[in-house]
């Protein structure tokens, strides 16, 4: 199976068209600058919406790619069964068929998962999911936690960093004391 080639072009093209159409219509409204007192909060909401769209687009594309690999694996299984029937050695039990199915699917997916195409698709999906995760956090912190006077993850991270750096300093000081005690 050559995952680098145009096997999955149709699904790519579909999502490219969908994204272009979205960007030319609804996407333009979403991108419009927000005016007024609620501008900052609404702007974060807009960015989160954009991250959501990107994540779903990447997710949908990944699903389409998996679907293509499933289709290919099913086709190969069917071909193998036909070949075996023609040779008079078709599976004679459900287990025999299962073993054939497992072997063919595992092999086909191994090729698919090993392709550079899959690696870049996985990286894109992960990155888009992370952007969504980060943007959701910002949105929740700014629009809900801060107004409610509750601690945020960003503040906790700042504290964690402070503690980490202080611990390092303490260790260095203790080490320094040990060294000077040894010298004495």
């Amino acid at each position, binding site marked *: 199976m050559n995952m680098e080639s145009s096997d999955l072009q149709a699904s790519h093209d579909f999502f490219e068209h969908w994204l272009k159409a979205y960007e030319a219509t609804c996407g333009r409204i979403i991108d419009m600058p927000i005016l007024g007192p609620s501008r900052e909060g609404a702007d974060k909401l807009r960015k989160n919406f954009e991250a959501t769209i990107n994540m779903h687009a990447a997710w949908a594309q990944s699903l389409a790619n998996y679907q293509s690999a499933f289709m290919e694996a099913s086709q190969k299984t069917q071909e193998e*069964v036909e070949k*075996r*029937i023609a040779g008079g050695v*078709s*599976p*004679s*039990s*459900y*287990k025999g*068929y*299962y073993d054939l199915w*497992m072997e063919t*699917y*595992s092999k086909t*997916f*191994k090729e698919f*998962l*090993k392709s*550079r195409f899959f*690696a*870049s698709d*996985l*990286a894109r999906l*992960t*990155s888009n999911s*992370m*952007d969504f*995760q*980060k943007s959701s*956090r910002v949105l929740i912190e700014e629009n809900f936690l801060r107004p409610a006077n509750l601690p945020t*993850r960003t503040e*906790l*991270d700042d504290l*964690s*960093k402070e*503690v*980490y*750096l202080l611990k390092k300093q303490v*260790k260095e000081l203790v080490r320094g004391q040990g060294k000077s005690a040894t010298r004495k």
Partner: protein
Amino acid sequence: MFRIVTTMEFTELIENNKKAMRMLDLLLKAPEISVGMTPSEVVYTQDDMRLLHYIPVVKKPYPVPVLIVYALVNRYYILDLQPDKSVVKKLLDDGLDVYIIDWGYPSGIDRYLTIDDYVNEYIDNAVEKIRELSGAEKVSLFGVCQGGTFSVMYSSLHPEKIQNLATMVTPVDFDTDEGLLHVWAKSLDADRIVDAYGIVPGNLLNTGFLLTDPFRVLIDKYVIFLEKIESNGDDEDSGRKNEEAVKNFLRMEKWIFDSPDQAGEMYRQFIKDCYQKNLLIKNEMMLDGKRVDLKNITMPLLNVMGEYDHLVPIAASKPLNDAVASTDKEVMVFPTGHIGMFVGGKSQRDVCPKISSWLRARSGDQNS
């Protein structure tokens, strides 16, 4: 359509149904499972990390203690999963004095820990504690998987404290396309992951491991488990075999899905410096301003790997032997996979005895 003989078809269906019902029944009555049962005591703690000392089973263990360093991903007790599948027990039975690091479960406050902290703080403090407790000048480091990578770094930076270095399924040369993790990691944006999560969820990494062979680990594993269940006979022997099969399976299930989260900065550095820039094997890895030069490794080296390891392929481990300056160095390749190294039949039969024998030959005189 494929050919299935009708009578066989029904027999097979009935048999499978009986097994499924029996399995359901066994799971409903599933006994409590225990892991890591070899007696030990906690001799040192620092933050989430604990240093365990296994109670020696011989009067006079070998004078050079062994420190096992496991990966941060998943838990150390895979090396002591159950008494008849325990690397730790085998080493103890052979008279070695064994310690292990339990990394614990990092939480939000640990997100800024770097590889330097793990290597030059936690491992170093564990080594110091062992030297203090045992009176030994040097210890043997036995690093497993990512723990092996850290052990290699440590041995390069603190060679004066290490008597022997044994590595098992340890990646050091990350620039290979033989393992899927190596292929995927090259394109991964670690900055985005760490910036989004801080502490990288263990489940996220586990999804990646499951994806390396999805049909085998998400479907076939359970089918094989079902096949092991004896559906016929309610006699004591069948009942005992079934109970053992369930317990063994549940222990592995527990271990596989017991995935600690990862300190973000460590993860970022491991992906970028190791998987993407491959700095370690090039002697360009920097920890706390110090270069990790593999030529500093002059102590005896044993490098153990699995022929069918799909997570750490041989190509990622083997180059270590050429990169170090040790004269006493050995490669052992066993016909098994990554997990099979610790818990498979070959582990107890072939892998453990050979590692133990190698360590014992270099751990001083037991009777001295």
